[in-house]
């Protein structure tokens, strides 16, 4: 059972997902209070007609507490781990979480910090405030190399399908966790992210996770990001003063203990 605190966090998080608001309104977005909210209105487009996804967003494509939570999965989908993966999740400890060690979150794990999407004709960039203060490159209308070196964010290529940006990524290392619970993956991981700006202030994000090395079948997560029109990214150097690590005890678990 989800402890009360965890449940409250979920309610708080859901309450922060605002419906389109009239111009000039403020409200809570995630942890952030009294933030400027995006006015209502349709999703914008660039001069050449390409959907404009640029801006500072908060939220990700999956539950960072537990990727297998049905609330964060496409209807009818299930996360079915292979036996070795199930076993490793049982034994992982909070202090082993790469996130707690100020290492990158990989894909699809989100964070409580905003991120910015930047579009150029050839490259799209995702700039993460945290965790960690890093970036992803998406090579538009390009191909993956034949044998990419394994990396934390993999090799990403993008294309448009109507109003949806589709980002295909391979070449991951096996080091990051999908969530606080410690769902693992292998270097066979292949993700397909689908970003659709549903209106001016919201981005729908679906991530299909295909890793035959760790999961019996692919699964798709669903998430949403909210535009933060009143904020800019701030510096977040997690490695500077990470005093928590020696104090973390017990099994890997969500932020509120769930």
């Amino acid at each position: 059972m989800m402890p009360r605190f965890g449940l409250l966090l979920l309610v708080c998080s859901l309450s922060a997902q605002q419906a389109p608001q009239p111009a000039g309104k403020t409200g809570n977005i995630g942890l952030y209070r009294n933030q400027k909210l995006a006015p209502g209105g349709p999703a914008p487009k660039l001069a050449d007609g390409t959907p404009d996804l640029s801006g500072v967003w908060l939220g990700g494509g999956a539950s960072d507490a537990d990727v297998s939570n049905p609330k964060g999965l496409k209807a009818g989908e299930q996360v079915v781990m292979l036996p070795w993966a199930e076993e490793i999740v049982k034994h992982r400890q909070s202090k082993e979480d790469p996130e707690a060690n100020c290492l990158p979150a990989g894909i699809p794990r989100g964070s409580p910090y905003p991120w910015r999407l930047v579009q150029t004709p050839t490259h799209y960039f995702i700039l993460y405030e945290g965790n960690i203060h890093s970036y992803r490159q998406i090579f538009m209308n390009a191909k993956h190399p034949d044998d990419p070196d394994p990396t934390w964010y993999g090799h990403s290529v993008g294309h448009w399908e109507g109003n949806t940006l589709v980002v295909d990524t391979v070449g991951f290392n096996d080091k990051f966790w999908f969530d606080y619970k410690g769902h693992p993956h292998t270097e066979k991981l292949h993700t397909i992210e689908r970003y659709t700006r549903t209106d001016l202030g919201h981005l729908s994000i679906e991530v299909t996770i295909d890793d035959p090395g760790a999961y019996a079948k692919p699964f798709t997560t669903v998430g949403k990001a909210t535009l933060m029109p009143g904020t800019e990214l701030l510096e977040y150097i997690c490695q500077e003063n990470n005093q928590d690590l020696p104090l973390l005890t017990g099994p890997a678990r969500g932020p509120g203990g769930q």
Partner: protein
Amino acid sequence: MRRLLLIACAAALASGLPALAHHSGAAEFDSNKKINLTGVVTKVEWTNPHAHFYMDVKDASGNVVNWNLELASPNVLIRNGWHRNSVKPGDTVSVTGAQAKDSSNYGSAGVIIFPDGHKLSFLGAEDPAK
């Protein structure tokens, strides 16, 4: 209703375990080990992944013990109305929160109360309207 919910959220986040950091708050702090400390701030670290302030507190025997108290990240605090000098060395404050599971003089600062009555919390100003 929304206002009530937001107040409930703010209160819970301020008084319970620290949430939504780069690690599980429940793995680090024990919500059953409440702290209630009054003392003088000796140092502030306005750093990521968490801001910290240190405070001299007299224990029951009259000995001065220096506590290390954790806040959210400066990024969260700034967006919620804090400034880097909202708590500064020399301030006398009272702090409620939770102690680290290892029972050291390390805790999460849930609510910070100043002599003039104004309050700050782990995530920001307790009443963001102030």
